[in-house]
């Protein structure tokens, strides 16, 4: 090891000192900055990633839609299933209906699915908390857990559905009676938004309620693992007949995604200042150290040290502080992320109470998704900032003339 690196390490970790206070304090700033950056970007990334999971699990990676109705859905499904990279496809129709149970109404979203095909695209069994998919026939529906709870419905309850078609018929002086159906299952997806008011119905029932005949609103597409949805969607858009459009999950929730992304960048930008401040504090402690060690720097010159080696000694201290601070910060972040739910729970218990917290925020379990690129940006940024912070002290040290440095008493 060159002497200037050896001396840099020794100045940070002096021989025989168990707890180097100066190094600890300088590194602490970097550690806190890095930890906060990693934790917040991971949790915000977790929300974004959770949204993707939710959308993909309930509608596939890609949906092929049309501004009008799709006339021959099965032909399109079979054509899509020929495309390499596509694991399965299933038609759907969606809308809003009024649900009535014991004179109590609600207005859930309804999604009609092709029972023969939907299993290839959407893993409903995974979300079922009561009932069975096998019991689902053209006279029954699945309801979301919160909807069932809110209206007091149970497995096997008989409910009535009023569709917008009834209003259309009324204009023509015809009366269409509400459709009676049975609850064949209750599902819980785990996202407030989807669990609040949602019905899954067999496609034929939905087509009947909306008067769609054999037509559907779109096709949900599930890709084989590892296939890039954005590439495949572009490819589909080039080959699909005019009027049909392939949308990725991202475009289906574009507003939501861009808000999350914007928030992430804002938080990143604000928290980056902690690292900048930490770098400035490294700079000031190293500057103090240069002044304090003026005579020793003079001695290094007398022993044959070159100015640029003396500079390297101080620059290296900035670098080492950056590396140790970042390492400590990553460890801290890992701890916080590992115990994030316990931390939130304790915080909730001491503030508003766990139940209120869950009701208000809709979660007690924080998602977390750390991306390699975020991590790399944070690590490189923190180390580069700390090393740059060493430059000014290094330059000052290199400017010292040995004779003058040794004279300074």
């Amino acid at each position, binding site marked *: 090891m060159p002497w200037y690196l050896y001396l840099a390490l*020794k100045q940070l970790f002096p021989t025989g000192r168990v707890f180097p206070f100066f190094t600890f304090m300088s590194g602490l700033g970097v550690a806190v900055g890095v930890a906060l950056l990693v934790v917040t970007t991971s949790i915000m990334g977790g929300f974004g990633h959770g949204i993707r999971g939710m959308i993909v699990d309930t509608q596939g990676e890609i949906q092929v839609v049309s501004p009008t109705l799709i006339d021959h859905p099965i032909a399109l499904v079979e054509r899509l299933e020929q495309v390499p990279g596509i694991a399965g496809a299933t038609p759907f129709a969606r809308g809003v209906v009024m649900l009535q149970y014991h004179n109590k109404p609600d207005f859930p979203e309804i999604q009609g699915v092709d029972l023969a095909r939907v299993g290839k695209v959407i893993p409903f069994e995974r979300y079922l908390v009561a009932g069975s998919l096998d019991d689902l026939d053209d006279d029954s529906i699945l309801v979301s857990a919160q909807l069932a709870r809110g209206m007091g419905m149970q497995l096997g309850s008989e409910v009535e559905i009023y569709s917008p078609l009834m209003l259309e018929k009324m204009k023509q002086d015809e009366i269409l009676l509400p459709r009676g159906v049975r609850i064949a299952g209750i599902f819980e997806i785990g996202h407030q938004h989807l669990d609040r008011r949602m019905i899954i119905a067999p496609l034929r029932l939905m087509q009947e309620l909306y008067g769609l005949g054999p037509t559907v609103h779109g096709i949900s597409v599930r890709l084989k693992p590892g296939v890039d949805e954005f590439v495949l969607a572009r490819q589909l858009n080039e080959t699909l007949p005019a009027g049909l459009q392939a949308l990725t999950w991202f475009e289906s929730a574009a507003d939501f995604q861009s808000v999350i992304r914007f928030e992430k960048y804002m938080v990143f930008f604000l928290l980056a200042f902690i690292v900048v401040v930490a770098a400035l504090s490294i700079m000031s402690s190293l500057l103090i150290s240069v002044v304090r060690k003026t005579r020793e720097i003079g*001695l290094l010159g007398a022993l044959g040290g070159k100015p640029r080696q003396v500079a390297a000694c101080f620059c290296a201290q900035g670098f080492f502080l950056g590396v140790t601070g970042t390492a400590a910060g990553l460890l801290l972040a890992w701890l916080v992320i590992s115990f994030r739910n316990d931390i939130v729970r304790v915080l909730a218990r001491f503030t508003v109470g766990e139940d209120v917290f869950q009701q208000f925020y809709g979660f007690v379990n924080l998602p977390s998704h750390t991306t390699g690129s975020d991590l790399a940006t944070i690590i490189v940024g923190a180390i580069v900032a700390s090393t740059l912070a060493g430059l000014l002290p290094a330059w000052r040290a290199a400017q010292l003339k040995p004779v003058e440095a040794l004279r300074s008493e």
Partner: protein
Amino acid sequence: MSDAVLSARGMRKSYLSGDRRIEVLQGVDLEVRAGESISIRGESGSGKSTLLNLLSGLDAPDAGTLQWAGGPARVELRAEFLGMVFQSFYLIPEIDARANVLMAARMRGRPGPAERARAADLLDRVGLAARARHLPAQLSGGERQRVAVARALMNFPKLILADEPTGNLDEHTGDAVIELLLALARETRTALVLVTHNPAHAKKTDRQMLLHDGVLR
């Protein structure tokens, strides 16, 4: 003159103090032969430290020529040609006595087992074998100066320049350090230029000189 380790001719140095120029050295000639010891005395402010800085190449003269071991003095040669001892010991506080001695070798490249052995040996010779693992802060003034002496000898220098090495020590400790310095210099046939205020110390050297009015006699 083949055995001259250092030869200085017509060394001049002046400083600007306000608008007045102080002629500190006005043509100093000095020849140091291998293994010989020389003392330089002079009033405070007479320019002794200034002269040593010129001889060690740390500072540039206004005029004059300097030769080390028969060739022109070059900064790159200093670490192996010269050992230096100062009034303030200038040990590096973060590392122990042995590492401070070894630092002189480390600055010329990675120290190997031979260098480590020599550092241990030198500490033994200055009577600090038992203190090798002590930090400078854990040593007395005399002990620190002895570490500095060992460091000055580390690279087998041809010449040691010592600028009032006893200035910060009490009389008894100072005497011991000077005895040690002279003995080691003689033993290793290293030339020594010793700046001192103490006539008793000066007397122990082979040649006594006086810096006065900018010239050395």
